[in-house]
């Protein structure tokens, strides 16, 4: 059993598990931090950005080197744990020769589609007149200013996929429900479990009859909108692959939500605008819900809230229809019937308005001061770029970062100098290290496998020994482009026995409670299922060539010698030998058993736990006699 680690990003994992002749890819997250090296794509012509000096290459040529760890066309299935971890799907399904199936829950697919569509829309609506790739040459890259100079494997950076590729990739997905058991080639069974992090987010169990691997990715124990995490089903795992823990272990989500609203209220009261760069799904639902409770008490009822995204409408509406994927409270509301999320009411009362983009209706309705939720959190593309340009110059305005995926300082770099206030309240509801240690105590896996980042404190807080996974035995860690041999051996395989064959068995009790029977059968293996079938009967002897050929195919069924069991009591054996006329018998104890020495006959009888040898000089008569004496003490069946 091997694990191929294709991603070094602990919250955007991409691992391939080879288990019992199946090749399973676990998630395919897309690390978009490389976009931070590019300039923002403005929606409206920005003189500032366009006037930046260009960088021209004197000479040189381009080559791409590919370091392939595994041939992705051999991947049988891809298991997706949540919508953030499927963003690289088109690259894999469309460009690698992948022919397998992708499994994901319905909300994961729908919201993942929204995220991809938003991404494609953001990029495609601002087409670039020219694109440069020569700089990816290592010799050229070396000359570039930092941080580009230090960026690793720029050759693997890709252009954004197209909507067509998205559709094609998503068509390969097969929808699954929590606790649904899916057979893969009869060899293993995979099951998604609720992970409590996002709508439809799942952990996966990959098991055969005797082995169980749990894949935990992006789980949460906090009470937010999704169904709570299913911990019990993770018990008794041989290996637990643990990824997707919180990226900000020192920030408590509750405290951050408090900080978010305090900053928001303060800014708006002063007549400033608030910009929240965010994804169109996920934490935004919880923020809107908190806002709903807080809006009146903070005197914000007259402030407009805008949610701008090409998929804003779909996201808000999709969230209301996935009732069975929501936490219990929200499910209960559906039966009242009420919309599970209160943002429906915010929209009805016109407090929250949503638009596909800043063009069109929005420009008519736009009123300040206001609060704007929009993407992309990297500040490199999407409507957020426009608002950064628009509001950046006034210190009355505030940008509040809630998504933990990007360094907010790097995200802000191209907008400097910036007068607007910046507040960093990363809200990451995924498991923190205290919760992980409780989870591991509860679930008790034999082995834990995790990214190497989780096995040591974060570099910025090297003294925080509490910010790492602490379990016994210590976790196995992996890093990008590493292949791990998972630390357990498969020992058993399940074999079915046909009823008529079972019927013919004659068990013999050799110990109380333990019976043995010999089986002669044909082992039939197909689709990773093994069946013992009765051996074909020897055909009646008959003439004809045709028959004879059939007989050739039938395996020879020799008459088997009986199997022996039991142990030989040495003293009684010696007495028996004496009774049968052997004299001058010496017994020596060895480390494994005994040696009975018949000095007169110049014969040795070695009696060990699992074998008996009679060593005599070419006297077959004597050997057979002795053998029969030995056999008297053993059971036959």
């Amino acid at each position: 059993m091997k694990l191929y680690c294709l991603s070094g990003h602990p919250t955007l994992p991409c691992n391939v598990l080879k288990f019992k002749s199946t090749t399973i890819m676990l998630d395919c997250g897309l690390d978009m931090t490389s976009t931070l090296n590019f300039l923002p794509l403005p929606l409206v012509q920005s003189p500032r950005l366009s006037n930046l000096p260009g960088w021209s290459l004197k000479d040189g040529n381009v080559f791409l080197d590919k370091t392939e760890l595994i041939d992705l066309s051999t991947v049988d299935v891809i298991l997706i744990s949540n919508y953030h971890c499927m963003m690289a799907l088109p690259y894999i399904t469309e460009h690698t020769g992948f022919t397998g199936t992708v499994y994901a829950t319905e909300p994961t697919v729908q919201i993942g589609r929204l995220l991809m569509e938003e991404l494609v829309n953001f990029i495609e609506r601002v087409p670039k007149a020219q694109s440069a790739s020569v700089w990816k040459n290592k010799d050229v890259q070396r000359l570039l200013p930092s941080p580009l100079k230090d960026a690793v494997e720029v050759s693997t950076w890709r252009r954004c996929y197209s909507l067509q590729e998205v559709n094609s990739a998503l068509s390969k997905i097969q929808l699954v429900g929590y606790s649904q058991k899916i057979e893969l080639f009869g060899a293993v069974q995979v099951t998604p479990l609720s992970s409590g992090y996002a709508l439809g987010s799942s952990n996966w169990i990959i098991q055969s009859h005797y082995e169980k691997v749990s894949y935990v990715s992006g789980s949460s124990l906090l009470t937010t909108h999704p169904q709570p995490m299913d911990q019990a089903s993770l018990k008794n795992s041989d290996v637990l692959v643990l990824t997707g823990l919180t990226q900000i272990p020192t920030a408590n989500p509750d405290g951050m939500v408090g900080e978010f609203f305090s900053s928001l209220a303060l800014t708006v009261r002063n007549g400033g605008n608030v910009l929240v760069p965010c994804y169109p799904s996920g934490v935004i639902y919880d923020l809107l819900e908190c806002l709903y409770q807080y809006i009146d008490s903070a005197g914000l009822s007259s402030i407009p809230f805008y949610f701008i995204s090409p998929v804003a409408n779909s996201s808000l509406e999709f969230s209301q229809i996935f009732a069975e994927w929501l936490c219990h409270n929200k499910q209960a509301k559906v039966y009242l019937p009420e919309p599970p999320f209160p943002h429906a009411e915010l929209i009805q009362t016109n407090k929250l308005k949503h638009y596909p983009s800043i063009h069109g209706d929005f420009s008519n309705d736009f009123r300040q001061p206001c609060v704007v939720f929009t993407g992309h959190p990297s500040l490199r593309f999407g409507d957020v770029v426009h608002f950064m340009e628009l509001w950046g110059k006034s210190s009355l305005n505030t940008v509040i970062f809630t998504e933990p995926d990007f360094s907010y300082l790097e995200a802000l770099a191209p907008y400097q100098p910036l007068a607007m206030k910046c507040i960093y309240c990363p809200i990451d509801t995924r498991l923190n290290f205290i919760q992980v240690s409780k989870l591991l105590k509860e679930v008790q896996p034999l082995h834990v496998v995790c990214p190497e980042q989780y096995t040591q404190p974060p570099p910025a807080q090297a003294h925080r020994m509490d910010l790492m996974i602490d379990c016994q035995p210590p976790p196995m860690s992996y890093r990008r482009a590493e292949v791990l041999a998972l630390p357990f051996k498969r020992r058993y395989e399940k074999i079915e026995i046909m009823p008529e064959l079972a019927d013919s068995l004659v068990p013999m009790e050799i110990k109380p409670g333990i019976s043995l029977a010999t089986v002669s059968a044909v082992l039939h293996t197909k689709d990773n299922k093994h069946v013992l079938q009765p051996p074909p009967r020897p055909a009646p002897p008959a003439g004809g060539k045709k028959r004879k050929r059939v007989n050739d195919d039938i395996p020879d069924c020799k008459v088997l010698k009986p199997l022996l069991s039991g142990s030989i009591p040495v003293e009684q054996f010696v007495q028996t030998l004496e009774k049968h006329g052997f004299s001058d018998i010496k017994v020596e104890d060895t480390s494994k058993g005994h040696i009975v020495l018949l000095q007169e006959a110049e014969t040795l009888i070695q009696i060990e736990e699992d074998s008996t040898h009679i060593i005599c000089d070419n006297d077959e008569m004597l050997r057979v006699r002795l053998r029969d004496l030995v056999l008297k003490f053993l059971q036959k069946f």
Partner: protein
Amino acid sequence: MDPECSRLLPALCAALADPGQPVADDTCLEKLLDWFKSVTEAGSSLQLLRDSPCLVELLLQVPQAPGLSPRVLAFALRLAGLLAAQEACFQFLQQGELLSGLFGEAGPLGGAAWMAPTVRSGWIQGLRSLAQHPRALPFLAELGALDTVVALQGDSSLFVASAAGQLLAHILGLALGGPAEGPPGPPACDWPASAQAVVGHLEEALSAATAPRATQALHVLTTTFGHCHRPWTQGLWARLSPLVARLLEKDPVPAAHPLVDLLLSVARSPALSSDRGWWEMAARALGSLRPAHAGPLALGLLTLQDCPQALSAQAFAVLLQPLACVLKAAAQAPAPPGWPAGPEGDAAAVATLLSSRSACVGLLCQTLAHLELLQPLPQRPAPWPQAPLLGAVLTVLRFCNGSAVPAPGSDLGGHLCAVLAGCARVQRAALGLLGALYEDAGPPELVTQVFAVLLDYLRSPDSSPTVLKKAFQAALQWLLSAPTPPGGCAPDPPAQPFLGELLPVLQRRLCSPCWEVRDSSLEFLTQLAGHWAGQAGFRHALLASEVPELAWQLLQDPESYVRASAVTAVGQLASRGLHATPAGPECPGGPQKGVLPELLGVLAADPEGFPRRAAMQVFARWLRDGHAEAADAERFVARVLQAAGRDLDWEVRAQGLELGRAFLERALGRPGPPCPDAAAAPEPAAPAAQALRAACRVGLPEFALRALFDCDRPVARAACALLLLLRDQAAPGLSLPEAGPAVAALEAALQRWRAGEQAQPPGPLEPEAVLAVLRSLDLEGLRGALAESSDHVERNPQSLLQDMLATAGLRGDNEADCY
């Protein structure tokens, strides 16, 4: 006993002795016992029995009556004990073998009723009451009660077990009781038999291998030494102390908690604390007990007045040991100067303890709480290690918010990081101690660190509301202690920069979505403004910030507690001229109306009581301080009383009377101390008649007269006191004026108020009419009636007996009701 009670008693006794009758509840029986106790304390029990033979009858019947309720059985046992406390009565009851019948084998002791814990408890309490005179001892011996009591120490009911221990201590005291002064009693060999027996039991228990037995004995000794300081206790301690010392030699020390209690009880006993051997034992105990138990002992020793210097130093070192470990984990340096040196072995024990999460949190919280208790005491160790203590508390707080860097290579440091990060319990305890340490300040660089850590906590979004409240309290204490230069324009550094950074934090906290945070921020603001309002620098910074405006906006908060705090804060700011005013150039977007109308609006319209009460408090303070808003006192008071008169909350009405009293005193020329910022000078003293007229103009008499018949007694009492003041001041010698139509109308209104109706008097009251009514009312009588507790009618024994009889007689009616 009054004749009515004597008449009712036989029927009640008969009802109690009848198993078929329903039994009155425990409370009634308890009250009945209280009554008997007061009767026997006032006179002779023997006489009581002779006057009421039914009691003897009851006591005789109880042991024989099968199926009697355990409650009645317990009651009879306790009653018998109560009566037999007097020697004469004891003899009288014993002549008829009545006591033996009740408390001996013939009583419930041997029967099924003994299974009920109430009965066992009644048996012990009966004996406890009975054992007041020397004759009781042979009686107890005869009964063989001692063995039963000893066995009951291990009873499954905690109440019974505890009472048994106390009874043993009491028997010991009775047996050995001698004169309060003089020689230390007879030598041990001459002790009476019962004392010997009890001491024998104690010795056996102390030498027993099991901790529960030793615990029982230690409890008995703690009670004995705690209550009795007679000379004989020295003999007892001399005899038992070797056994106690032997407990200390075991590892771990068994029954450590009660052992500490015993040692401290001995230390506090004037008869024993002079014993040198005891101090040695205490020193040994400090060394051998685990830190969790050594801490309370150390604190107990340090609070003693006459603890020897060496022992007190040792105790202090033990107490500080966990903090020493924390310091060491963070610095790896030798103990800071001024830190008492502790034995190395202890440090290792504490280090092991700190490495487990629950033990570490418990021990640190205990240590911090102990130091907080010790800090203000006059007998605290001197020199007090203020600077290292501050350093240690700051280190703990830094470990708790993850900013402490453990010493390189320190395992303990790593563990502390992991265990303490985000631990709100330790944070609260440490902030509590930090707040208490403000008095002695410390070196300036440490004070700077204190403010820095406090700011970290106030800023951190991860601080829980309770931690934040503690941080606010500590910050306030440190700010108040910061020295201000004589000019009074700004506090010295480092408080000044702290104040500067505090306001933005406060601003953000006032916008918190968590109501507890908004509430404690407002409370903090109120206190801060109260203290610093005089400082120009602070005034300027506050007015430049949005804090006053935010406080104003919180008057509309959805949470009533927050609104109440906002009312107090706005009132405080307004009285110091710091509120957000519409005209103020500092607050362009400020409120549109004044503070007084806004707060009157709260009083009139807020649906919850807390904000309205807060508003009344603000008004009363304004009036007393002579605040500008209350400059036109008559108009002000009239408006407030008008709003408060209709209030449903009794506290608001009571505070209305307080306000009225303040107004009256002011009108009579007895104003309270004026506020330094007072905008209006107090009015000159006016004659009483003028005061009465002023009171009438604001509607005070009407308000008070209506309140006189308020269904809430505190309001009525306050109204009565106010009216008495008005009457005595305004009309000491006036003759009764003639009754006019105004007086008649007012009396009619009074009648209706008395009947609980919401009637209005016809028009404003004339001073003459008020005076006439005041004279006609028996205010003194009313005051007396109101001073009685509301159940004074129901509380007399007669009513109790009637109630119990009624319960007993109810059975027939109930049956008729059921079908």
